[in-house]
């Protein structure tokens, strides 16, 4: 009973925060920037809270995802009702996370930004390790926590450099200063920031925490993490793009390259995953890649002064942030429902769930279609915008530039095709066919509170797919931050795109209605006919078994043979050799090749070095006090270092004159 009160309280608080901030944000989105300046103190300087249209766009996305997340989480956590303490901490951290994420989008002071950024990382960490009694969960959580902090180091270094150069901690101070930055400095600064925020966003090769953290978190948290937390990495990159004013062309090409690699690598690995949530996690990497392709060509457009390219790129990228947050959270909620009902996420063990959970299956299908970028759903709209940018950019620039853009086109198409392969597998094997194993209890449709948020997300998916123009209009202000011309000179491009999108929406409606009319005709034709039900035809074989169905591995077998050089698949095979052979065993396990080369190998030598310093941790308290004293002494020495240096140089001058 008491638990129920807490649950309701959490829902009310979340909706309260969401509603109040959304109202402010929607004002900002239509172009009225809101600014509150807190006085701050000596260290921080003034702390401006600014909500411009970019922040507003992010805040609205965050709020929507949190509302669906809290509703779904209430239903999902019902199974943990006996763990009172954990639930309380979880609910508390949920609010903290929500609050800190909104603050990340509003605070425009370098130091304060880092603090709210850290609060966000920390609270997300505690939310991920909800099942802390599971060792793998804690390990995955720590993986996330540590990698996030490696990212923070890069952000910190570049922030310190900026503060030292400008003497101000306000974001706005950078703009004036960066206009005259040499291109090389600007690019270096951006690359540092890109690495820092890239850890959060999950760009390859900084993605390795994602496939661990997503499966171990509770499903509503994985949905929100993939939906919005990693997007704040993108937000950081976008915000920094606004501050940097030179070297756009090179920066754009860097973003585009990393994004193409991320997109392809993410989906290539997603296909061979057999854990449903891990598969979805790799798809997050892919979609971050697609968002990045959009932002990349947008930035290239800025560099080339090609407004069409810039508008198409940024519109596509920003819209895909929203789109991905919708369908990916929907997919994770679906995966969570499957897990709750069957107790497993192993695709090979699932099957035939569409008959037990028709609504979950239908909603999962909608999200799967959307993530493949198929019309008439939302994924297509953003991909279309990006495509239009890429195709139009083929014209401009030299041969190598055109080839680069052509590669991007081919990559985006291939990503789409591979996504279809992946989601026909995920949906087909999990929900269709016969059940592949026996469950402890018969799976049934999840309750209403878990379905409601999914319907909300699905409704949004259709809304964007069928009425895309509406959302393009909303994007006008956020995009105008990057391309100021949009409001006057280049408005023609913009309204042109909007007209095209209207047509696409209409064609989507046409498609849906044709399908229904045709289905009606079929029903009419069949009205007096015999419609019989028989077992699936086994090509003459009369005793088919559910084990004879195509499995997930066999579905992607041809593909994985083809792509094997890019994967690292460990096969363990016990051969039958004796006269009386024992049990035959065969298992394959695939591992992230980049993780091996980037993380594991480097950790190995790092550990080797650090083990040599092990003697420092000797466990005697006296030594630790000594370390403290030494540290304080060192700080004093360093802070007087400048003074000492002056003394030293003074002496040197004195002597050299003589």
């Amino acid at each position: 009973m008491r638990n129920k009160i807490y649950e309701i309280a959490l829902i009310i608080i979340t909706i309260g925060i969401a509603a109040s901030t959304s109202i402010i944000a929607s004002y900002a989105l239509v172009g009225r920037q809101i600014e509150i300046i807190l006085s701050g103190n000596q260290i921080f300087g003034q702390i401006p809270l600014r909500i411009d249209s970019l922040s507003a766009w992010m805040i609205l996305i965050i709020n929507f995802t949190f509302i669906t997340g809290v509703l779904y989480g209430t239903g999902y956590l019902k199974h943990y009702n006996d763990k009172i303490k954990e639930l309380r901490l979880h609910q508390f951290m949920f609010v903290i996370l929500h609050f800190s994420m909104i603050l990340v989008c509003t605070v425009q002071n370098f130091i304060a930004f880092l603090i709210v950024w850290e609060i966000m990382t920390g609270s997300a960490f505690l939310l991920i390790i909800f099942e802390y009694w599971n060792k793998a969960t804690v390990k995955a959580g720590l993986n996330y926590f540590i990698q996030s902090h490696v990212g923070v180091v890069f952000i910190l270094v570049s922030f310190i450099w900026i503060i030292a150069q400008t003497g101000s901690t306000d974001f706005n101070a950078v703009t004036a200063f960066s206009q005259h930055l040499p291109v090389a400095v600007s690019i270096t600064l951006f690359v540092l920031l890109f690495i820092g925020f890239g850890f959060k966003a999950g760009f390859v090769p900084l993605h390795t925490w994602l496939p661990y953290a997503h499966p171990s978190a509770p499903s509503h948290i994985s949905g929100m993490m993939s939906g919005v937390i990693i997007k704040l990495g993108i937000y950081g990159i976008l915000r920094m793009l606004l501050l940097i004013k030179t070297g756009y062309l090179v920066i754009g090409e860097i973003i585009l390259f990393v994004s193409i690699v991320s997109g392809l690598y993410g989906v290539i690995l997603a296909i061979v995953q057999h854990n449903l949530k891990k598969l979805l996690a790799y798809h997050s990497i892919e979609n971050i890649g697609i968002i990045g392709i959009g932002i990349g060509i947008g930035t290239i457009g800025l560099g080339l002064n090609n407004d069409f390219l810039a508008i198409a790129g940024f519109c596509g990228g920003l819209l895909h942030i929203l789109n991905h947050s919708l369908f990916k959270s929907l997919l994770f909620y679906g995966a969570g429902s499957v897990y709750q009902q069957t107790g497993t996420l192993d695709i090979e063990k699932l099957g035939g769930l569409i008959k037990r959970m028709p609504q979950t299956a239908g909603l999962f299908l909608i999200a799967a279609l959307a993530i493949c970028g198929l019309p008439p759903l939302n994924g297509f709209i953003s991909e279309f915008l990006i495509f239009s940018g890429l195709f139009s950019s083929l014209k401009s620039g030299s041969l190598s530039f055109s080839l680069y853009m052509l590669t991007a086109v081919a990559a985006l198409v291939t990503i789409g095709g591979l996504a279809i392969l992946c989601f026909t597998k995920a949906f087909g094997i999990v929900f269709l066919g016969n059940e592949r194993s026996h469950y402890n209890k018969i799976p049934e449709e999840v309750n209403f509170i878990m379905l409601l948020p999914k319907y909300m997300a699905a409704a949004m998916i259709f809304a964007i797919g069928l009425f895309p123009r509406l959302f393009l209009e909303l994007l006008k202000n956020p995009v105008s931050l990057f391309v100021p011309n949009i409001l006057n000179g280049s408005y023609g491009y913009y309204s042109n795109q909007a007209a095209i999108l209207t047509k696409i929406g209409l064609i989507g409606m046409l498609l849906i209605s044709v399908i229904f009319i045709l289905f009606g005709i079929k029903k009419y034709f069949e009205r007096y006919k015999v419609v019989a039900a028989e077992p699936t035809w086994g090509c003459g074989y009369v005793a088919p078994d559910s084990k004879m169905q195509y499995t997930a591995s066999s579905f992607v077998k041809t593909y994985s043979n083809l792509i094997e050089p890019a994967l690292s698949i460990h096969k363990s095979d016990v051969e039958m050799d004796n006269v009386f052979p024992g049990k035959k065993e065969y298992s394959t396990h695939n591992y992230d090749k980049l993780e091996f080369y980037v993380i594991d190998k480097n950790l190995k030598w790092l550990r080797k070095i650090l083990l040599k310093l092990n003697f420092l941790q000797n466990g005697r308290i006296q030594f630790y006090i000594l370390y403290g004293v030494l540290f304080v002494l060192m700080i004093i020495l360093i802070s007087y270092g400048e003074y000492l240096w002056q003394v030293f140089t003074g002496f040197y001058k004195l002597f050299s004159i003589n």
Partner: protein
Amino acid sequence: MNIVLILIVSLFFTGLVNRTKSIFSGRKGPGIFQPLKDIFRLLKKGSVYSTTSSFIFRIVPSVYFSTVLIAALFIPFGGDRGLISFQFDFVLFAYILALGKFFNIISALDTGSSFEGMGASREALYSMLAEPAFFITIGSLGLLTGYSSFYQIFNSIHYSASASPVISYSLGMLASVVFMFLGLVENSRIPIDDPKTHLELTMIHEVMILDNSGFDLGLILYTGILKFALYGSLIANMFFLNSTHILINIFIFFSLQALFALTVGTLESFMARFRMNQNPQFILMLSSVSLLIFLGVMIITGKI
């Protein structure tokens, strides 16, 4: 306009292919309207559904047909634009066809059959591999003409300032080769797949529709023909004459479609199906041909 012509072509396309094959193999063969008669008979029949299958299986044939029908609306006819035409419409065109494929694949998985999954797996992989070729080809033609919709591209392909007709026609020939083979891949014909084989293990498309019957099967078969006519009319669009009378263009359209059908029939008579594991190489070859077109365009526009 064009949709009517595509529908007319679809009446005899497969019949023509079959007739060609029968003549080459020395048989008398069925009349060219026989496939259509078969389809009509199927449409009038009742159906049998697998007990394993769900509503997905029932709705998919309608979805599949609708996607191809809508896609056909995109294709222009010489000076006439298609019913649907806007900038970058070819992206939507390709993705709508992909939507149909998605549903086809999950419909095959819906039956829980050990064979149909096989076809589904191959279809998913091969169509993924074929996708870049289409985009690169159309992208290059767009680059050549400076336009970005089917109608504008096809309308001005031989009249661009930078390229003489000789070059543009030769590029058009290359592009037609790409489209023709794409049509073969999409429709699962020889040399990718053999629709007439007797062993389910060696099929792609036919094995996916093992469990369909009655109206659904008729719809799927007709959609296949329609898809052929669709690719045929893409090819035809590259050879229309701009200023002449529309009847001449209609004549060109029908003769090119017939030529396409004859080519397919001839190919099927004299070639065997590739081994399954060589199909990816063959399909990727199409991408490299389309890359050739791209480089050709680059030369014409003076970037190389």
